[in-house]
C-alpha cells in the first residue's frame, strides 16, 4: 500500500515536471516565432499562439507577458486604422495587467506597461500626449526602480525620449545617453530561458538612428 502511495506521488511529480517542461518549451517555441516574425500575418500568428498558452495557463505570468508584448507588434502594422490599433493595445494592456497581478512588482511587466501606454498614446498623439506620456514615463520609472539592471526598462526610457519631441523634453540626444546605458546592460544580461531577454536589436537600431 505504502509503495502504491509513493509510486502515485512519484508519478504525479513526474507528470508535473513533464507539464512544466511542456510550458517552458511552448514559451521557447513562441519566442522563436516572435523573433522570426517578419510581417503582419506572422506577428498575429505569434500573438495568437501566446494568447492560446495564456488561456491554457491562466496562472503563468510569462504567458500573459508575452501575449501582451506580441500584440504590440501586431498593432505596429501601419495599415491598421486607429480604432483597431486602440483595440489591440487595450487587449495588450489587459494581458499586462494580468501579468502584474500574477507577478506583482516585476520590472519587466512595468516596462511592458510603459511600452503599451506609449504606443497607445501614439495612435492619437495630439489628443493623448499631454495625458499619456507622463503615465508611460511613470510606469517605466517604476520598472527602473524595481530593477535598475533591467536593460528593457532603460530601453523603454530611451525609446520614449527618442519619440518625444525636444520641445516636450525628449529628443535623440537625450535618448542616446539612456540607450547607451541600456546597451551596456544588454551586453551583460544573463539570459535565463523563458524570462524576458528581448530588446537588444531594438536598442542597437535606435542607438544607430539617434546618432
Amino acid at each position: 500500500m505504502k509503495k502504491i502511495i509513493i509510486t502515485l506521488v512519484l508519478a504525479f511529480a513526474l507528470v508535473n515536471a513533464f507539464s512544466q517542461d511542456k510550458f517552458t518549451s511552448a514559451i521557447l517555441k513562441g519566442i522563436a516565432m516572435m523573433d522570426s516574425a517578419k510581417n503582419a500575418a506572422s506577428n498575429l500568428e505569434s500573438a495568437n499562439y501566446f494568447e492560446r498558452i495564456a488561456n491554457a495557463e491562466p496562472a503563468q505570468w510569462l504567458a500573459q507577458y508575452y501575449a501582451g508584448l506580441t500584440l504590440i507588434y501586431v498593432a505596429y502594422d501601419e495599415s491598421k486604422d486607429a480604432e483597431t490599433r486602440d483595440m489591440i493595445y487595450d487587449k495588450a494592456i489587459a494581458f499586462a495587467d494580468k501579468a502584474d497581478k500574477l507577478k506583482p512588482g516585476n520590472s519587466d511587466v512595468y516596462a511592458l506597461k510603459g511600452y503599451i501606454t506609449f504606443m497607445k498614446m501614439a495612435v492619437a498623439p495630439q489628443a493623448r500626449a499631454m495625458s499619456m506620456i507622463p503615465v508611460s514615463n511613470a510606469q517605466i520609472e517604476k520598472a527602473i526602480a524595481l530593477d535598475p539592471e533591467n536593460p528593457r526598462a532603460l530601453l523603454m526610457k530611451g525609446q520614449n525620449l527618442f519619440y518625444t519631441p525636444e520641445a516636450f523634453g525628449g529628443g535623440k540626444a537625450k535618448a542616446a545617453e539612456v540607450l547607451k546605458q541600456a546597451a551596456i546592460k544588454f551586453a551583460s544580461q544573463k539570459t535565463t530561458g523563458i524570462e524576458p531577454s528581448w530588446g537588444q536589436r531594438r536598442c542597437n537600431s535606435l542607438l544607430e538612428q539617434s546618432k
Partner: protein
Amino acid sequence: MKQLCFLLLMLTVLAKAQAQTRISGTVTAAGRPLSGANILLAGTYDGTSADSTGSFSFTSYESGSFAIVFSSLGYNTDSLRVQLNGQPVTLTLRMKEAIVELNAVTINAGTFETGDNRKGAVLTSIDVATTAGAVADVVAALQTLPGTAQAFGENGLFVRGGTGAETQTFFDGMLVKSAFGSQLPDIAGRSRFSPFLFKGTSFSTGGYSAQYGQALSSALLMESKDMPDKTSTEFSILSVGLSAAHTEKWKKSSLVVGGNYYNLAPMYAVVKQNIDWNRSPVEIQGSAQYKLQVGERGMLKVYSQFNRTRADLTTNFGDEQNRADIVNKNNNYYINATYKDETQSGWKVQGGISAYVNDERGKVNNDKYALDNNQYQARFVLSHPILGRNLVRTGIESSFNSHGESWNALGRSFNNHMQAAFAETEWYLGQLFVTRIGVRTENNSIIDKWNLAPRLSFAMKAGKRGQFALAYGSFYQNPDDAYLVQDRNLDYEKAQHFILNYVYQKTGITFRAETYYKKYDNLTKYNSTTYTQGFAVTNYSDLNNGGSGYAKGFDLFFRDKKTIPGGQYWISYSYLDTKRDFRNYPTRAIPPFAAKHSLNIVYKQYVPGLKTEFGTTYTFSSGRTYYNPNNAVFLGNKTKSFNNLSLNISYLTRVFNEFAVLYASATNLPGFSNVYGYNYSADGLKNTAIRPAANRNYFIGLLVTIGDNTFNH
C-alpha cells in the same frame, strides 16, 4: 515493485492510446473569410490561426469532449463542443462583429462629451484650452459648439433660446451656484474655473439625466482630473497678470496650490476700451486641491478656491445725462469635497459636500448696495450594474441656499432648503438598443411644493457607425433669487425638451445633427413701465408665473481630425426659432439673447518644424432683437449681424531648460464693428449702442512648468 511496473506500463499504454485528431475548417464573418482568427482547444496549447482564406487546420493528441474557442479582434468570441477520437473534425465557424466601445449604442441625445479618453468625446481638454477666441475659458470654448449662442453683454452659457441662468454648472456632480463673477452692466464675465482642472466635460444642450436638476436648458458637467503624475511647479507671465502653482505628489495623495493675480491696467493702456473704466479691474484668485487615493478604487478630492475682484466704471444706461459711477467688489469662496468608491460586489458610491459663499458689494453713484448668496449642498449617489451592462442609479441631495440684497439702509433676504431625490435605470435591449428611464423630484421650502420630472432617452444603432437617439424630459428651476426675495408665492419655472438626434462617428470624423422642440411654462413675469436697465438691486411688482414660450430648431456639427495632417477643424451651425413671454414682456417676442443663425468654424494646425500650433475661429451670428421704445412692435428692431475672427498661436519651447508655451491671441482681428444692442434713455429719445468691451483684444502669455510637461492649474 510489481505494482510500480504495472503503473508505468499503464501510463505508457495510456500515452500510446492517445490518438491524433485533425481539426480543420473555415472561419467567416458576414460571408467573408476572417484571416488571423485564433482557434484553440480550451485548456490546451493546441490551436492555430486562420490563414488569409479563413482556412485553418491543426492536430491534437487530446481525446474526449473539448470546447473549440474561436476569437478575432472586433468579433464576438464564440465556442462549440467537439469530440476528439482520432476521426478528422471539419468545422464551419461563423463569427459576428462585436459591439465594441467605439461603435456601441449609447445615450447621447442632447449631449456633447469633451475629454481625453472618453467615448464619443467631441473636444479634448486641450481643445478647450486652445480654441482661438476662447482664451482658455471653458464656457467660451463651448460657445463654438452648436446649440449655443454667443454671450454678448451677459454672463452665462446661452443654450437653445434659454437665458444664461438656465444653464447650471456641476463640479464633480456638485451644483455650483454661479460659475461666473459679478455681472457688470453689459459686460460678460469669464467663468471662474480653469480648464486645466478638468479631465472631461459633458455639455448637455437638453434632455439631460435625472441626476441633475435646477436647469431649464442645459447642464454643464465638469469632472476634475485624477491624481497628477509628478511633482511640478508652473509659472505664467501674462499680459493681464501673473500666475503660479505648485503640485506636490506623494505616494497616494497630491496637493496643488496655486494663485493668480490679474490686473487689466497695462492692457487697457494699450488697447482702446469701449467701456469707461475709472479703475482697471483687478482679480486675485487662490486655489488648493487635495486628492487622496483610498484603497484600490476609492478617491477623495477636495477643491477650494477664492476669487476677489474689483471693478470701477461709469455707464450711462442709454442716457448721457444720466451717468452712473459703479463700483463692484466681489469675494467668492467655493469648496467641495467628493468621494468615489466601488465595492467588490460592484456597488459604486459617490458622495460630496460643497459650500459656495458669494459676497458682492459696491456703490451706484452714492448709493450703496450689497448682494449675498450662499449655498451649501450634500449629495449621495449609489449605482449598481444588473445583468451585464444594465444599471440602476439612485441618489439624494439636500441643500440650503440664502440670498440677501440691500440698497443703502434697506435690505431683504430669504432662506431656502431644497431636498431632491432621483432614480434612473439604463437598459440595453440586445446590442442595438439602449434606453434610460429616470425620474427626479425636488422640494424647495420657499416654494413649498414637490415637483416630479420624468426623463426618458432612447438610442438605436443605425449601421456600424451611425446612431439615432430620442430624448424627452421635463425640467424645473426656481425663479431667479431676485424675484424670490420679493415674492414668496412664486412657483417652479418649467421646460420640456423633445430631441431627435443622429450621430455618425468614425476615427477622426464626427457628424452630428440634432433637432429639438422646447416648451416653456410658468416663466416669471412682472410689471414694469420702463425698459431701461437697472443695476444690482431692482424692485419688481406683480410677480407671477404667467410666462411661457418655445424654442425649436436644429443643430449641425462636423468635425474632421483626419484629412489634414497635423490639422483639424470643426464647423457648427445652429438654427433657432424662439419666442417667449417673460419678465416684463407685453407679448411673446424673440428675446435679445437669441440669434436665428449661428455659425462657428474652428481650425487648428500644428506645424512641427516651427513647434507651433496656429488656431483660428470664425464666428457669425445673425442680428438680434433690441427694445426700441419708439417702435410700436415690442422688440421689433434687429441689430446687424455679428462677425468675429480670432487667431491664436502657441509656440512650444524651453525656457531655462524647462517646458514652456508662449501663447498669443487676438480676438476680432479684422476689427468688425459689432453692436450687441442699444440702450435707450427713459424718454426714449436717445440711445447708445452696446459694444464689446474692446473692439479688438490681444493677449500674450508665457507658461513655464518645471518638472513636468503638463499643466495642473
